[in-house]
């Protein structure tokens, strides 16, 4: 499978996860969206040398993955593969900020090293939270809840269209790329000229498709308005879910739980 196929397969897989039927899947998408956003803001609001204080936040992804029956390995792999950018930028910190922040035994730990680790922790947490949201909720439901929160309708509707045709277009691109590579012998490389013609044709097909879709819509009475029948309700489970997690986040954010824990232990065992 080439790159394109893999990516659309990947999205398909997350979509399949979202079709699950756990207690968490059944929660109103808005509850999950809000909790996720609070989580992310809480995590990134730590100062740049925060390390141990961030750790309790791992409870959230771990608990949700377990309760939602999501595959640990798969999500972990996704986190590891993506965004070298954070690491790329963060890796300069140990080089630039060499001021020793504290010692473990005789080894001095520099501020840059701590802040680099902190970046990595934030990265893993925020990325995992977003992946979990989608895997438990599905993209369409997330869009619909954004609509409920007042995101303009034209934006949401075209976003839903985009998601619907993402699979169709990636399949089409995939077929074109495969057809080309089967007829070339230096299959690894593609020249600019071929590339443009490929993209250009893909674009023309896209425009034709848009026209056909529009026709199909008109044939069923489309007049510029979209109606979606959705019954979203915030009930007791949603309130428990949101208030429970949010108060935990506040607790974790305001007190350094691991530090207290550690002080307790080192106090007992000198």
């Amino acid at each position, binding site marked *: 499978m080439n790159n394109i196929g893999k990516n659309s397969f990947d999205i398909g897989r997350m979509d399949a996860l979202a079709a699950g039927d756990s207690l968490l899947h059944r929660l109103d998408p808005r509850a999950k969206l809000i909790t996720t956003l609070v989580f992310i803001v809480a995590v990134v609001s730590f100062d740049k040398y925060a390390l141990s204080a961030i750790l309790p936040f791992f409870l959230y992804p771990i608990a949700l993955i377990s309760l939602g029956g999501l595959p640990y390995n798969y999500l972990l792999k996704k986190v590891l593969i993506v965004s070298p950018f954070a690491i790329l930028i963060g890796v300069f910190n140990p080089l630039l900020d060499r001021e020793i922040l504290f010692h473990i035994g005789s080894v001095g730990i520099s501020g840059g090293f701590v*802040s680099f680790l902190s970046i990595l922790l934030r990265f893993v947490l925020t990325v995992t939270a977003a992946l979990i949201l989608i895997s438990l909720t599905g993209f369409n439901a997330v869009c619909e809840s954004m609509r409920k929160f007042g995101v303009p309708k034209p934006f949401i509707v075209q976003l839903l269209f985009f998601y619907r045709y993402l699979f169709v277009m990636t399949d089409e*691109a995939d077929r074109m790329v495969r057809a080309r590579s089967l007829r070339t012998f230096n299959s690894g490389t593609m020249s600019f000229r071929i590339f443009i013609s490929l993209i250009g044709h893909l674009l023309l097909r896209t425009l034709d498709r848009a026209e056909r879709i529009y026709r199909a819509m008109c044939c069923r009475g489309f007049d510029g308005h979209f109606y979606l029948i959705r019954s979203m309700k915030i009930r007791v489970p949603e309130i428990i879910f949101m208030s429970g997690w949010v108060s935990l986040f506040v607790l974790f954010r305001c007190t350094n739980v691991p530090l207290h824990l*550690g002080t307790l232990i080192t106090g007992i065992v000198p």
Partner: protein
Amino acid sequence: MHMADALISPLVGATMWATTAGLIGYSAKKLKDEADDRKIPLMGVLGAFIFAAQMINFTIPATGSSGHLGGGMILAILLGPYAAFLVMASVLTVQAFFFADGGLLALGCNIFNLGFFPCFLAYPFIYKKIAGENPTQAKIATGGIIAAIVGLQLGAFAVVLETVFSGISELPFQTFVLLMQPIHMGIGIVEGLISAAVVSFVWKARPEILNSAQGVASIVKVDMKKLLLGVLIVTLITGGALSWFASSNPDGLEWSMFRTSGKEELETSEKVHASLANVQGKTAFLPDYGFKKSEPKPEASESPTWPAVDPGTSVSGLIGGFLTLVLAVLIGIVLKRRKIKSLPER
């Protein structure tokens, strides 16, 4: 390049979210005013096209590396700035959710960096000026290439500013600029060549498509200055309000931390450090971002947070941190067990 959640402060994230949300709202309203029923499905499918096309790579001659499409400029040329901006926002949203490209908090930054500049600056003020009302192939090519390069340069510069203002990365402003701008010069040239070539391809095959887009685009030109002013105001007000909030609730510990590290860096003779401290000095109110430390003061002084220099606390932190992780994992395992047990019953 995508900004990542891990690199930005909530202040920067929130400011850019507010700005982007405003732009999305405004663009959606403009789209409604255009009242072109055809556009919504077209936008969706074009977004899917950009998404798919971004995955196709070609080989850049003599470098061994590969290039691919970004898409902002092509979208702007085909759809006009407002619709193009919304489509770009959608593409980035899906990438943030599924491939964790960037992240949710950084999504505002990313939409701004990769959508605002090509759609609202490079397109109307460069591409349109060069391509004009009666485009020829040469004009389309020149306009497309220059506009794409400028769009990406501005986007890259925005990445630098957002990172530096966030203060999570230690990369000093100058170094970062010297790193990002040339890289994005290369990316911009590639993007420009692709945009120009693809648009010319469509123009040759189906000129009427571009002509209709031109028609739409000429209507919107008038509002552009108002829009830019609006963006500037929203950004300044949000950023200003949030940083006022941040500075009115300063956390004593962090302020002093920041001061000392800044001073010591000045003392070191290394140039990079000096310039970093310089930039930090200028932007001092920003890196100490808001939303912080809602904990009561006395407690904060009793139990200093992590970056305390007391070795005893560090060891406690390490042990405690380790224990916390073990606990979290244990909870996970228990929850998973319970779930598996309860499965057959359902």
